């Protein structure tokens, strides 16, 4: 098994943020922000030094908690510091973006890194349907078409035009071509049947984020079955789990940290009326403003507590990770260390502890 360091590049003063989404830009202090990115890049560099084989970035918007609106920009900067690790974009939110632009960024990155890029496709969290004013009902269709277009743009050697449902490009001719031929490894980050089937049918990997092990096992069971139907078997690197982690010297110290946490941990939602409107649109329900607003409390409905996938001392963490390996076939653990109330210094200590006490053991899986 491999470990991947997820680089959210969180704003160091994020504990002062309101609990809703988006975070107003008025909370931004340039000096703090510059320092935060520097610290985030140090964490990636140190993770590579400690044996993490991937560093990963993810597209999220309008929040300093995961401050990588354009993950390719972040990846390019980190790739100059991390010279060996795979650079995984897990992933780009294809429904929001121009897929040709996404393909160009990925191809450039694969050249800049001399073939170390891993591609991830992702629909995005519901709040992000509001970014760039996309109709949530179109997200699934845009993701499926976007994946086809990115793959074609990366692999087709002659210029072509594209007549899609959501995109029309009369000239596509991506330059440079990827170093990895025919294209870099691709992970589809999803739990939805149609996207899982897409991954299986196209020989692509699967990424699952933050769910308990039993839920991931069900997703992987479907994926592996559909891969078998398509005539192939996924390799360990093609089953990726992203989870939140807090590792301490002992289980007791981890429990003490958790007990000391106050308030909500995330702000990925926003006003509940908007959350309900997005959910209605995604599920194809009729949008009726009176029903959406009626009885809708104002304010935030974001999750409470850190929602950790892994927490404890090294022995416990090893056992927890092994469960995902044994029950889900996960071959890559993409780990989110920047938890609430954990500053840069503590993250560096966790990376060191994980690299020393956990990583050598999970590599044996």
């Amino acid at each position, binding site marked *: 098994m491999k470990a991947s360091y997820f680089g959210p590049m969180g704003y160091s003063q994020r504990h002062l943020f309101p609990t809703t989404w988006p975070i107003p830009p008025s909370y931004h202090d340039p000096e703090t922000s510059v320092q935060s990115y520097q610290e985030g890049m140090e964490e990636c560099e140190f993770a590579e030094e400690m044996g993490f084989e991937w560093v990963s970035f993810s597209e999220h918007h309008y929040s300093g908690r995961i401050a990588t609106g354009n993950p390719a920009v972040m990846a390019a900067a980190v790739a100059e510091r991390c010279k060996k690790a795979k650079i995984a974009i897990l992933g780009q939110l294809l429904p929001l973006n121009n897929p040709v632009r996404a393909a160009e960024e990925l191809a450039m990155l694969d050249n800049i890194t001399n073939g170390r890029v891993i591609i991830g496709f992702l629909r995005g969290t519901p709040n992000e349907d509001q970014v760039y004013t996309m109709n949530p009902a179109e997200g699934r269709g845009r993701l499926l078409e976007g994946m086809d277009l990115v793959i*074609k743009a990366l692999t087709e*050697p*002659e210029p072509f035009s594209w007549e899609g449902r959501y995109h029309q490009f009369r000239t596509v001719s991506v330059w440079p071509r990827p170093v990895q031929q025919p294209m870099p490894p691709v992970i589809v980050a999803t739990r939805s049947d149609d996207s899982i089937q897409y991954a299986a049918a196209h020989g692509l990997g699967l990424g699952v984020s933050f769910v308990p092990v039993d839920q991931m096992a069900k997703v992987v069971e479907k994926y592996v079955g559909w891969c078998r139907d398509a005539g192939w078997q996924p390799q360990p690197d093609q089953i990726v789990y992203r989870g939140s982690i807090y590792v301490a010297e002992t289980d007791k110290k981890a429990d003490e940290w958790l007990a000391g946490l106050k308030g909500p941990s995330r702000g990925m939602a926003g006003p509940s009326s908007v959350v309900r409107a997005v959910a209605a649109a995604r599920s194809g329900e009729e949008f009726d403003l009176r029903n959406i607003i009626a009885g809708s409390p104002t304010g935030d409905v974001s999750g409470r507590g850190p929602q950790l996938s892994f927490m404890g001392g090294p022995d416990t963490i090893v056992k927890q990770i092994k469960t995902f390996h044994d029950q889900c076939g996960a071959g890559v653990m993409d780990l989110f260390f920047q938890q609430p109330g954990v500053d840069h210094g503590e993250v560096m200590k966790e990376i060191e502890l994980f690299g020393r006490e956990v990583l050598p053991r999970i590599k044996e899986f």
Partner: protein
Amino acid sequence: MTAQTEFKEGRVEARGLSIRYLEAGQGDTIVAVDSLTWGTPKLYHALAQKYRVVVLEAPQLGGGSPSKSSKALAGITALAAASLAPGDYSLIGTSLSANVALWQALQAPAKIEALVLISPTAILPTGGPPEAAGSRPVQSLLTHPENAPGPPQPDPALAAAEKALVHLLKEVAHDAEAESRLGEIQCATLAVFGLEDKMVSPEAARVYRARIPNCNISLVYDAGHLIEAERPEALINLVSDFVERRETFIVGRESRVINP
């Protein structure tokens, strides 16, 4: 929704064959070669709003004539086209008829201003479709079997025509001579493929683009071999734009202004 134009039917003689054709519209002429298996495609109805459209029923496919090669048939369709369209024209061919149109452009290029090849199978055919996902053989030509053209329960004549079409697609072989001569085609050319077309290898499209001097290739998302059945609006938009603007169709001209 494309308005339905009334096509009048006629027959034209060429090399001893009586070829059925349909005609509608006014303006610059478009000649199409088509099996017309499922009636008159929406594409021709749309084009007839602006152009004079003459659709030649491919003698091999629709008329039950003995099987002849695309090259031989092209000589016949070129004569028929010259009889019905004395001036210059744009030429459209679909599927097996696109192979005929391709040869027509090679043999009688003088009057052809633009060439549109929709799902051509002359280059790198795969030997036919995979097993049909539904009860009708034609469903093997589609990404979504429910998009099958014509009535859900085709009459015996249509069922036989569909079966014959699929059989012919299995018979088609790589046309090395046509491939070697693609560089001779000087008119603006558009080769259109459904992204999920299993009748040709994925490398086929790029052969046209690389060999024909003024060729664009277009990929229609979420469509198999029968693009007309699965993404008719996309096909109409694309072909109409190309016929009107030829190779300059790549230049955007639709306004993106919101609330001026």
